[in-house]
């Protein structure tokens, strides 16, 4: 009898604890709801793809392939950019076709080669989910709709800020040992007139609000017209949103088409763009001449960019570096 009583008490305890744990993990804010939605394949036609399928958290919410696979394994058109550090951005997607995070959040859901789900259908699904109906009511005091779906996703994305890289530690806390001497040299080069990266890559996320062509459009083998597809202006041919550089070291491959596998390849390209893409159309005049970087300078620049990796990804960075080293052997 005593044993049975003990079993009952223990069982009740387990049930109470597990219930409270479930309740505690329920989203209580718009951002938490947005996180739940971000990771939920309910927002794709086949219910097999979520935002997080391409924006992988362990890779700073970017992907690891040149282009990502959407529903039914359809290949995307452009490289998946990181969804981190969006709070200060003013344009979204490589071609800037969205002006707000709310606008941006819904487009991949509807895109036939990404999640392929009309937003109306997504909203219908959410309204037919007891869990989501309850959550939207609690947080937005209304049933799920297109607006609050977009807001929730956007609010979650706004939480994905990183400001604890070795570079930040060095400069804000005067911690000289936070970055290597090579990275410090790289920072000087980055800001100096020889490499001149800062002309485009400036700001809190090391990109500004402009669209520039670095010469990855030639109308033949490189045919993505970028910003011009949105503005219809010939002068925008081959222009793309300048990529933000925080956490860039863990988000290969690089550029709108993922054509560069490593940061070293990126630096080699900038060092002499005409050698890699000889007949580019509309390449920015900032890249008109080779930079003539030495091998050490290239290494310093790579080390500087690695120093922009938030400390939470330090392990992932080391893993990637080890993989790249092994591939070179």
């Amino acid at each position, binding site marked *: 009898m005593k044993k049975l009583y003990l079993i009952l008490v223990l069982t009740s305890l387990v049930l109470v604890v597990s219930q409270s744990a479930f309740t505690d993990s329920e989203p209580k804010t718009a951002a938490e709801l947005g996180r739940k939605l971000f990771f939920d394949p309910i927002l794709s036609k086949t219910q097999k793809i979520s935002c997080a399928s391409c924006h992988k958290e362990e890779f700073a919410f970017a992907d690891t392939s040149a282009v990502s696979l959407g529903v039914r394994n359809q290949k995307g058109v452009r490289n998946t950019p990181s969804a981190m550090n969006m709070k*200060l951005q003013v344009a979204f997607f490589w071609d800037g076709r969205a002006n707000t995070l709310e606008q941006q959040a819904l487009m991949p859901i509807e895109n036939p080669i990404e999640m392929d789900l009309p937003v109306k259908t997504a909203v219908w699904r959410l309204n037919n989910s007891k869990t989501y109906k309850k959550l939207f009511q609690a947080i937005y005091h209304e049933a799920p709709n297109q607006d609050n779906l977009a807001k929730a996703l956007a609010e979650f994305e706004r939480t994905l*800020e990183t*400001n604890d890289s070795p570079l*930040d530690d060095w*400069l*804000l806390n005067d911690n000289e040992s936070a970055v290597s001497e090579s990275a410090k040299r790289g920072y000087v080069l980055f*800001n100096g007139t020889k490499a001149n990266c800062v002309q485009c890559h400036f*700001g809190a*996320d*090391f990109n500004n609000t402009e669209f520039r062509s670095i010469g990855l459009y030639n109308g033949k083998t490189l045919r993505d017209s970028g910003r011009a597809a949105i503005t219809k202006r010939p002068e925008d041919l081959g222009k793309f949103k300048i990529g933000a550089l925080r956490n860039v070291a863990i988000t290969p491959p690089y550029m709108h088409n993922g054509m560069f596998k490593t940061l070293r390849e990126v630096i080699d390209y900038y060092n002499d763009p005409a050698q890699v893409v000889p007949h580019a159309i509309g390449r920015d005049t900032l890249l008109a001449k080779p930079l003539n970087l030495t091998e050490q300078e290239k290494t310093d620049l790579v080390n500087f960019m690695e120093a922009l990796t938030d400390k939470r990804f330090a392990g992932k960075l080391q893993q990637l570096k080890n993989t790249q080293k092994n591939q070179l052997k």
Partner: protein
Amino acid sequence: MILSCLMSLVVLSAFKLTDGPNPLVGRWENTRIFQGAKTSLIGNFKSDGTYSGFINKKAFVTGKYQMKHDTLYIDDSTCGTGYTGIYQVQFFGQDSLKFHVIRDTCQGRREGTDNFLFRKMK
């Protein structure tokens, strides 16, 4: 008499009249609303004449500065070397200050700095 006055002046001018320690050295923070969100702007001014700027603790600019009495001369890589901003620095005791633009053609730097109250961080 005149000679002794002149001699006194020569002697006095041989002594360096120091400005004292640079009161700008340290980290100063302003908090404002930007794009509807609370945003922090920090300037870390070092004693070696270099400084760094931070938005929400993200490093975004590095440059050089000089203080001459209450006038700040500031250069950075984003605005470009040679585009020196000149500001009058108004201190409120030791723990807060305001920058007042005298001349700065760099719009971003001017808009982020002019007339904002910065508090010294511990």
